[in-house]
């Protein structure tokens, strides 16, 4: 064979020069990263904190002294913490046994439940809350049914307060425990348990000394996720919290009253609690990997339940859980066809019509709402996708020289990116509003608050960590030797990225983007604080229909939202499989 001249014949003098200079692409990436984090994370959060220490232009602790002296604020803090801890405990009690049951045993209807288990996670909180009211509220199907069946004068219960909140939180947040425990169980090498049994350990000992220690990281992660989500919960306390005043609600009402100082100070308190949880979470993330250290393992097969009675019981349980999961959505669907005003004291609505759908599809006001939500979510998701590629390249850890930032910076950047995700939507909205609600250092005389762009900006901040996470997970699955092989075959950095890495990671990245898109579509918590007529999203329309007792129309909005979400999630699921 004739030999080619080497593509880059070694010329030492040139080489050393090239290495010293940072290529323009890297400079651009670092610049974009710095700008987004400065404008989106650092400046807004800093301005809230600084404002909370100021009064009449001077530095003071007076705000805190005054606010922490109020009984109602202390109550809100205690309620928020108590609600979150209670939610974590209940979700663990439901989610962990379910994960064991459905991961370790096989029986009819197991798949039915497994397919539906994560349903509450993709339900927008506001839509879930509305569906829950239609089903379990004192004027809902269940209460009416019992009332009519036994001829009671009053509804048998009222959906208010602690019990209602805990029930709803458990329904919507148990999947964190179910999904993470399930994944943890699948990761555990079955041969470890087998080895322990051979060494003489009983089943209980194996559970206690082999399975649970390996499961601890998953459980802690689930607990923290549940805790943070519960701290951020807004729709449920707003609609059926009753006397339970939580921090998110307090911040909202303080802003409505025009008491900005109080809103900001409470925001800082809420942010500190959430960030504390995030830091603990991060610490556990790092240690999560020890299960993967095992060599070639055996995967555990599900044990088929063969005993007749147990099999029937397990099947019934699975069907019952599946029904419970579907029921709220089914109710929403039913109510969306109810003629407005036709559902008063009957168990089920008495007259059905498609008028609600006609209304939301023909009405220009409704069309505008859909257009707004779709556009803003699309802008936010697309920006998040671009940003995630940028940040993943900046953060990549390569053993050779291609590293852009050092390990310390890497940690700091990763933490900063997670901040908007860990902060409750209320906090993000209040801090952005505080930072850009007046002429600011960074934007000059341009005031972001009051424009269309405030919501896409907040959606981007809140949901970009999801896309970054999805892309990082995809990247981790790509065998690093593939890029090395491409390098040894002569491909430059850019070619290696576009021809090897990108084709392998895009399905995961797009799936993550779709997820961010659908979550943004139903966003309510932050939107309600800063929306303007020009960018009124779907969730605001649902809330106002509800307030006017147009239950059917509110439900119809919810159903359309769920349909869009389902289609997107199906596409995302396809893409995920494509990757595997």
């Amino acid at each position: 064979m004739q030999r080619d001249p080497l593509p880059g014949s070694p010329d030492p003098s040139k080489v050393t020069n090239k290495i010293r200079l940072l290529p323009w692409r890297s400079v651009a990436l670092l610049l974009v990263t710095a700008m987004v984090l400065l404008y989106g994370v650092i400046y807004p959060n800093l301005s809230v904190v600084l404002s909370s220490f100021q009064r009449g232009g001077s530095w003071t602790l007076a705000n805190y002294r005054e606010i922490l002296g109020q009984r109602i604020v202390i109550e809100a803090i205690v309620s928020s913490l108590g609600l979150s801890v209670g939610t974590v405990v209940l979700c663990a009690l439901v989610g962990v046994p379910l994960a064991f049951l459905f991961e370790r045993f096989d029986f009819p209807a197991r798949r039915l439940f497994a397919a539906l288990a994560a349903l509450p996670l993709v339900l927008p909180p506001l839509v879930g809350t509305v569906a829950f009211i239609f089903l379990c509220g004192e004027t809902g199907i269940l209460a009416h049914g019992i009332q009519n069946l036994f001829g009671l004068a009053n509804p048998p219960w009222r959906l208010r307060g602690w019990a209602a909140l805990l029930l709803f939180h458990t329904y919507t947040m148990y999947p964190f425990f179910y999904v993470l425990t399930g994944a943890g169980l699948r990761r555990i090498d079955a041969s470890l348990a087998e080895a322990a049994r051979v060494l003489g350990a009983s089943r209980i000992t194996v559970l206690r000394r082999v399975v649970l220690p390996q499961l601890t990281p998953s459980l802690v992660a689930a607990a923290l996720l549940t805790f943070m989500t519960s701290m951020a919960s807004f729709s449920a306390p707003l609609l059926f919290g009753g006397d339970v005043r939580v921090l998110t609600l307090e911040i909202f009402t303080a802003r409505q009253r025009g008491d900005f100082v109080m809103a900001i100070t409470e925001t800082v308190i809420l942010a500190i609690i959430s960030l504390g949880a995030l830091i603990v979470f991060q610490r556990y993330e790092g240690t999560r990997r020890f299960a993967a250290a095992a060599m070639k393992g055996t995967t555990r097969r599900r044990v088929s339940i063969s005993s007749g009675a147990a099999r029937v019981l397990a099947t019934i349980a699975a069907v019952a859980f599946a029904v419970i999961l579907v029921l709220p959505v089914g109710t929403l669907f039913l109510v969306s066809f109810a003629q407005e005003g036709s559902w008063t004291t009957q168990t089920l609505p008495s007259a059905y019509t498609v008028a609600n759908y006609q209304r939301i599809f023909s009405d220009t006001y409704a069309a505008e709402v859909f257009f707004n939500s779709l556009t803003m979510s699309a802008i936010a998701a697309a920006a998040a996708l671009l940003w995630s590629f940028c940040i993943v390249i900046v953060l990549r850890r390569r053993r050779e020289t291609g590293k852009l930032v050092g390990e310390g910076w890497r940690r700091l950047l990763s933490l900063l990116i997670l901040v908007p995700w860990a902060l409750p939507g209320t906090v993000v909205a209040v801090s952005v509003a505080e930072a850009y609600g007046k002429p600011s250092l960074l934007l000059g005389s341009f005031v972001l608050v009051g424009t269309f762009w405030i919501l896409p900006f907040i959606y981007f901040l809140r949901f970009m960590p999801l896309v970054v996470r999805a892309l990082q997970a995809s990247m981790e699955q790509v065998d690093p030797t593939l890029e090395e092989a491409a390098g040894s075959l002569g491909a430059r950095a850019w070619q290696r990225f576009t021809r090897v890495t990108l084709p392998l990671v895009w399905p995961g990245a797009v799936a993550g983007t779709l997820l961010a898109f659908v979550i943004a579509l139903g966003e309510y918590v932050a939107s309600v604080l800063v929306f303007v007529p020009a960018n009124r999203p779907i969730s605001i329309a649902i809330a106002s229909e509800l307030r006017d007792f147009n239950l059917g129309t509110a439900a119809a909005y919810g159903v359309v939202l769920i349909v869009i979400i389902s289609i997107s999630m199906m596409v995302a699921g396809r893409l995920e499989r494509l990757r595997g």
Partner: protein
Amino acid sequence: MPLLSLKNLSRSFGNTRAVADVSLDVNQGEFFGLLGPSGCGKTTTLRMIAGLEKPDSGTIEFQNADITNLPPERRGFGMVFQNYALFPHLNVFENVAFGLRARHKTKAEMTERVTSALELVQLPGYEKRAMDELSGGQQQRVAIARAIAIEPALLLFDEPLSNLDVSLREETRSELRELVTRLGLTAVYVTHDQEEAFALCDRISVMVGGKLMQTGRPRELYEQPAEISVASFLGRNNLIKAMRLSSSKTSDGEFKTLEGGHTLHLPVNHGDLAPLNKPVYLAIRPEHVQLNANGVPNSLPGHIREIVFAGATSTVRVDANGLLLEALVLRTDGLQVNQPCNVILSPDHLTLLK
């Protein structure tokens, strides 16, 4: 003039010194082996040659030019990875053509070179196959085809046969050697399997604990290991701890074994004359240990401890007055456990280790 020269290469990961002060030369057309137990730094050395790892210190020269800081894509070396690193989203053709696309070859030339590379590895007509439609052996061949399609100035192998089963490994081994010789390529081959290294390589460097212990032809390494680590890594060996006696001369070294107290003679030259009051190691291969011959130098009295039958050969363990020795014999007729016998350590085969 060597084609590739490594000069004092060192590389640490955290507190571990993976590669410590390694220097070696590879000549044009040579099939060069890096052999050592796992974790000895041989793969790190190979990755530094490929440019995938940067040395902390030392230089790499190729065709007399310093390439230490040259990125891998500009070195023009072909590399076959242990796990093959085939691109799962590309078919066989695109995998093999990858390096040619990076070099902006014309379509016609690309097709021609891919076809000829696939013919060379005996996979003609597999162009359209996806990676998961190939067996392990076929994937291995695609990885080799991809590396030779760019007509590399140097071909690097990182334990490429370790994922194949034994019979396929031996078959692929001889094909690989034949292919590299036919194309006139220079290869650096990393393995922990001494049999593989001996069968493939013209010269071998043995690495232990990040250090390069000895470089030489396979036979040299096997018969005259210079270091105790090389002697014990390459096949079975009797290691005898001994002290040089003051009566020894440069032509006739006289040693007293610490176990058994036997006196052994072997020729030593001035260069490796061992110090008098420090224990040294002597090595002799079991197949060179003779039993039951009288009246020759280095004959030690002892008795048979154990006879282990292993098919074509048997291992006889002899206790020579406390000094335990192994002999590899073809026939065990007339030998019995506990029977007294003489062990002969022929001076021609006894090596003094550093």
